[in-house]
């Protein structure tokens, strides 16, 4: 059972900033290269990075470098390339923050082709 509400997954195309900020977990919208298009309030507070500072940067290499390996970023790229992005993985963030256990859910919105990274600790 994923921590992301199935209703959120089924209505990704309408997930705008207001709705994303209301979620009880992180929500990051990225393009196929990982560049952040939307960085919600929960994630901003967890990472200590304001949305304006995160948006436009690469999530995997610049904002969450803990994910810059084949387990996460590599699998993201492979899944985007094959059009099958939808997986969940447990991880522990350690970079410039107290060690924080998280679960990541990465999923593509089939209608808009946007990719979403959801984060929960």
């Amino acid at each position, binding site marked *: 059972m994923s921590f992301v509400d199935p209703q959120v997954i089924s209505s990704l195309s309408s997930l705008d900033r207001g709705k994303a900020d209301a979620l009880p977990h992180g929500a990051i919208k990225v393009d196929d290269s990982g560049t952040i298009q939307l960085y919600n309030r929960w994630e901003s507070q967890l990472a200590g990075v304001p949305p304006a500072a995160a948006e436009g940067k690469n999530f995997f290499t610049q904002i969450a470098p803990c994910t810059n*390996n084949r387990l996460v970023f590599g699998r993201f790229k492979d899944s985007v390339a094959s059009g099958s992005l939808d997986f969940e993985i447990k*991880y*522990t963030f*350690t*970079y410039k923050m107290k060690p924080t256990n998280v679960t990541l859910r990465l999923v593509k919105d089939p209608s808009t082709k946007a990719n979403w990274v959801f984060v929960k600790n």
Partner: protein
Amino acid sequence: MQQEGVNTVELNNMLRMQQRFDEMADVLDLDQTIAQQMNRWVRDQRGDLIRLLDTIDDPEERKHIYAATWVRLKSQWVVYNTQIGYEIAKTGEAKADTLVKAATVAIFVDAIEPFVERHEVERVTAHVGSSWHDAA
């Protein structure tokens, strides 16, 4: 107490590391043996850094050494971080000492980053890369 050759800003950065380690140990709820081992490891790492900065007092040389140390520590963190990912993938959780080492090295990276100049990092990586090609 300020050490000869280490300015106040640098020293403050070093001293904050112990406080941040204590917070980290609380978060991870380390058992006493692991906490003592890791505390010793952190103190040794911190001591090595202070001794390094204390020894190399030429400002220009220091710029290069800050960059080289940053590259070394960042590379160490990349290794530990990847190790954490695979430990979780294989057993469901990362080992406590790997987590402490990763987080501690990241604290060192954060502490010295203000003193690191990008072009010096590029010099270091070019230096390391060229050495590898020469060796081959």
